[in-house]
């Protein structure tokens, strides 16, 4: 079984971002970049399938700038067999990324695509579902458990208020949630080995997909600040404010 894992290079989750002063975008110059944490979980799951002998090949793919090679090296250090970078300097919407990934799926013919449920920069939560729809596959989103069945994958999904389990015929797309696994710490020797694993770089254009979309971000701003609060004298005043002013009780 061949597993394809799309990964995205994003600002590290520990790093605070802020809008540029002219509001034209988010200032990410010199910030620490990492693999999207949800993608790390997908990567970990794929590698576990590989180690369990279920998967025979794990291929990581990223669409982004040349620096996304670092992200793919991380994927290779996790245990991916090879990696593909489709280079573009443009920041592309999920509708376009899913077009490109559908083309990659066409070339690679994986049995399973495992990917993060959302990127922690644009928080879109779309790409896996869009890819599944484009290639006409079933989807298991927000996976917290994954089990391989006979010609199918059984995915337990985190939904509001609990979990829900679905069975998908293969090939399928699964998007990963936080509780699926805890990604391993990368071993130093594996990081060194990853530098020698195959990493194929091609311009995104080589896929021949349309990179236009109807959506664009026009400006960004900090979230509105909260109004200054008031001090209440006693419980009675607090209850009164909550009931009559804030109307939350």
């Amino acid at each position, binding site marked *: 079984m061949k597993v394809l894992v799309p990964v995205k290079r994003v600002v590290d989750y520990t790093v605070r971002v802020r809008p540029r002063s002219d509001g034209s975008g988010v200032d990410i110059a010199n910030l*620490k970049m990492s693999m999207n944490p949800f993608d790390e979980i997908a990567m970990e799951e794929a590698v576990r399938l590989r180690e369990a002998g279920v998967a025979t090949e794990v291929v990581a793919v990223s669409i982004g700038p040349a620096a996304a090679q670092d992200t793919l090296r991380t994927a290779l250090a996790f245990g991916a067999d090879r990696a593909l970078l489709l280079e573009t300097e443009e920041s592309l919407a999920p509708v376009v990324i899913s077009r490109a990934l559908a083309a990659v799926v066409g070339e690679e013919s994986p049995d399973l695509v495992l990917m993060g449920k959302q990127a922690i920069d644009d928080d879109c939560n779309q790409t896996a579902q869009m890819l599944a729809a484009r290639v006409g596959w079933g989807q298991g989103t927000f996976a917290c458990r994954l089990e391989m069945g006979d010609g199918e994958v059984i995915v337990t999904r985190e939904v509001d208020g609990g979990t829900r389990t679905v069975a998908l015929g293969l090939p399928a797309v699964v998007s990963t949630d936080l509780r699926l696994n805890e990604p391993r*710490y990368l*071993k130093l020797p594996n990081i060194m080995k990853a530098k020698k694993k195959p990493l194929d770089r091609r311009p995104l254009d080589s896929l021949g997909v349309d990179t236009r979309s109807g959506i664009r971000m026009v400006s960004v701003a900090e979230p509105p600040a909260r109004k200054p609060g008031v001090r209440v004298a006693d419980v009675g005043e607090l209850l009164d404010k909550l009931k009559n002013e804030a109307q939350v009780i």
Partner: protein
Amino acid sequence: MEFDVVIVGAGPAGLAAAIRLRQQAKQTGQDLSVCVLEKGSEVGAHILSGAVFAPRALHELLPDWRERGAPLNTAVSEDQFLLLTQGRALRLPTPPQMHNQGNYIISLGNLCRWLAEQAEALGVEVLPGFPAAEVLHDEQGAVKGVATADMGRNPDGSEGPRFEPGVELHARQTLFCEGCHGSLTKTLIDRFRLREGVGPQTYGLGIKEVWEVDPTRHRPGQVIHSVGWPLDTRTYGGGFLYHLEDNRVAVGFIVGLDYENPYLSPFEEMQRFKTHPAIRPVFEGGKRIAYGARALVEGGLQGLPKLSFPGGLLVGDTAGFLDVPRIKGSDNAMKSGITAAETVFDLLTSSPAGGAEASDFRSRLDNTWVIRELHRARNIRPGFRWGLWAGLAHAAVDTYVFRGRAPWTLRHHADHERLRPARDCQPIDYPRPDGAITFDRLSSVFLSNTNHEEGQPIHLKLRDENRPTALNLPVYAGPEARYCPAGVYEYVETGDANGSRLQINAQNCVHCKTCDIKDPDQNIDWVVPQGGDGPNYPGM
């Protein structure tokens, strides 16, 4: 894993050494494997400096740095040296050492990121996220490399489900370039008695913020240094204000860690500094975008330990080459890295076995401008033990009359011995933060992007758990709660007979090392946490 040379720390010293080693290997057609370990999540993540940078060593190392796109973008255009009193600023003549023509205002973190790229292009293995946690010795006791930190231990030290043991990296020579007060350097100084016959090191704590200021208040290239207010005249320290590119201003404040009053809070002195009428206007309408802190070495020539030992060297500010009157450390650190590389390269070429001592490192350094200048400057910092006025007067005489050739050398005292009992000192009433120009500790730490994965052992080790409440709190009024610029140490009331206990919020730590330096009883050992943890400075 085996390397010819392992370098601990991807700062200016370590990266300069790595680059020089590979340059020599290439020039002579030899194969010399060099690996640089870095505890930060990436190169530059833990780097913090002013910084006004003199490109002398850089020019020696990579003469075509300009063509290669080194991030030296803002040439210094103006130098000011201010004496602050409460409410007034008096412009003093800028001392000759502090002239900055030909120097640049930079982010040292970004310079290190660039140096790491140059090193990798030369074939150096740069490995961020892997702290060296332990020095390895051969049977003769010589250093034979280091082991990286374990990952995935539980708080009690047991192995967690994702436990990944550290890896041993063996080398014929190991260069310790940990920056000021390195944690492995501390063990090496003990083991090899590197401070025997040498006076103690002395330190300062630098706290820095980066602001994006109103464009009308931005003077790219302007450099301001200050002494005086808000510190009392017994305490050594001063402020700086550097105008970088893109409406950015770096502001910082340094307090000598030989301060005496345990009520002093370097963090709050820094916040107060920004409210001086000569300083405040720069920040009106601006926005603070980064925060961090780091201890720095101030001991100069007298503070330098022995630099070599079997199997390795101390290089850069973990030894302590910062030139206090010039307020320059990176240039000297790089030069020491270059010299260390040349020394080690010659040693490895002539005697290929590991574990030899590159004992000529110091004598080679003595013949460079690094030691010559440190010698000239050696009496200036210790002169300030007599207070600001005498210190300034002494510095003027030493500089203008003796020209650094005074026939004596003043000694330092260990910083941790300088604290006076709280009962002999005045509490300091610091103003409350206004949320516009001045801030509290926690919202500041937030901007350092520091992170320590939960569920690992605390990396700030108390040798004696009872010392904080037996000594630090009753005698010194709990100084760690004040000197820590990240709110790591907190005395909390237990509500029972014990009264209080020391809470260590290790996840806030910004790796400044002040606690390891200033704890009055030397009860705190700062050790490396899991790889990649700590601040993520965006170009400090």
